[in-house]
């Protein structure tokens, strides 16, 4: 029997909310998928586009960036940068042949252990339905020309 596809998902968790939320999920004995590979950063604003691309290059099937809710950031408003950065990167990912749905941004506070378990499980399910990233990248086709709405990107 063929081994079922177990994706590798890198999750960047901010130190103050999402990492603590993940911890809380563990303490509360909530099941979250073992496919999640957590990396602690001080703030979701620390996660650069290069790191996310690096994770995909190193074989990640999906990447999650989880931070504090807007208005709740430990660093006043550093997560406003994340909000601008991730959707922009999602648009660019399409060009590289990577399905933009393989990257998500969500907010998990330190009190939201059930939400942590839910978003990680949902995302892993999503990645399983998308299949391994290797298969996606094997298909050689010219990048579909997508018109990038400039105003939206700049804002």
């Amino acid at each position, binding site marked *: 029997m063929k081994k079922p596809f177990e994706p590798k998902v890198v999750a960047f968790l901010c130190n103050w909310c999402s990492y603590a939320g993940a911890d809380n999920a563990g303490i509360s004995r909530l099941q979250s998928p073992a496919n999640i590979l957590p990396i602690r950063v001080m703030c979701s604003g620390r996660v650069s586009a*290069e790191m996310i691309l690096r994770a995909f290059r190193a074989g990640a099937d999906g990447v999650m960036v989880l931070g504090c809710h807007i*208005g709740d950031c430990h660093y006043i408003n550093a997560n406003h940068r994340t909000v601008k950065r991730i959707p922009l990167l999602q648009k660019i990912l399409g060009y590289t042949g990577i399905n933009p749905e393989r990257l998500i941004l969500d907010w998990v506070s330190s009190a939201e252990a059930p939400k942590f378990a839910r978003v990680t499980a949902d995302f892993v399910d999503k990645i399983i339905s998308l299949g391994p990233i290797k298969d996606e990248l094997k298909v050689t086709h010219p990048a579909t020309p997508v018109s990038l709405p400039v105003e939206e990107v700049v804002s």
Partner: protein
Amino acid sequence: MDAGRHPNIELLDYSEVVEVNGYVGNFQARIKRKPRYIHSDLCTGCGLCTEACVLRGGKGKLMVPSEFDEGMGTRAAAYIPFAQAVPLKATIDPNSCLWLVKGKCSKKCEEVCGTNAIDFDMEESFLDIEIGSIVIATGYKMWDPAQIPDYGYGKSPNIITGLEFERLTNAGGPTAGEILTAEGKVPEKVVIVHCVGSRDERAHAYCSRFCCMYSLKQAHQIKEKTGAEVFSLYIDMRSFGKDYEEFYRRNREEGIQFIQGRPSQVTVDPESGKLFVDVEDIQLGQVMELEADMVLLATAIEPPENADQLASTFGLGRTPDGWFAEAHPKLRPVETASAGVFLAGCAQGPRDVPDSVAHAGAAASEVIQLFNQGVVTIAPTIAQVDEEKCVGCEECIHSCPYTAIWRNHAQKAEVNPALCQGCGTCAAACPSGAITALHFTDDEIVAQIDGLLKLAV
């Protein structure tokens, strides 16, 4: 009062901080001093200008509604806000003074002032000072109960807030301490409604914390002064402090009737002016209608209107309910995300007098601790710039939530280690990889990514 007299404390009344720069131990603040049209150093607080003020209606009654008396009393245009004001100096209200509004007045106040303190040409001025640390103690404001029309606030002069009642029962208030309805009668039935706008998702989800206790005090005062029948409608009685539960018991023994239930509406009978409060007693499971001569609303408190502006001036975070955010809800309740800026009292969230005093004491000792040490300990996780790589694009300067980065004389980015809190947003934003977030460097994170992905899941 003591603060006003202390030789090491300089009070800047009628002032507003408009700009703050710098960092812990080295703040520069620009303070706007609003004109009070009376020189504070000359004014003795004698009150002659108030007596001389010509702004009077029939029978010599003063005409301006007094803010201190919640609009129930009146004051002159030249006035001392209240008898215990600190500093005890008169001021002239530019919105009601005839000379300042219309340019027409006999200026009797100027004539009577023995020290020539009155100066109508006074203009606002700015003061620049250097300070080591900042304590934010900006307090709260009362929530306006007219926002939920069910309570009927504004429909009858006998539906009043707890603060308005405080003026009624105060010996220095408009009725000289007598509890009277708007018709001047002693009330026979009084209903006190708890949690008006607090613990209510239509207004504020949080508990305002001190309303239960002042409502108990007011119930006791009504009972004692008027002997009226008092009904107290509550959701949960939060008499949490030292001796508070005992006071609640005393209230019950005095015959005040406690009904657990939030009223659905307060209506006014248009003919008799009587008030009717509909409430379900959830312990009896019975809907009842209470008749009352006076209804007291224990209204919620909320952050002041200028909280937004204060937050941006002082670099403060705010919690979703609007209060200023402390650095840690349990372990660092007086510090803020900005080093050297502390919170005291209701600026951080609702609290009663003993808690505010304790909180302010904690803030003061944090300040003393900073001053005594003369140095600050910072976390090792801060940003560092490699000047060789920096091209001076200023991307990091825009991304920094703490304005900890500036462009130095060499046109390179430079991080102020005392201001940097180490979020690393600048390191992620830097296009030339010149900024390193210490202990969370790109290399360290990439090694983690590579290492994790080498593992078979």
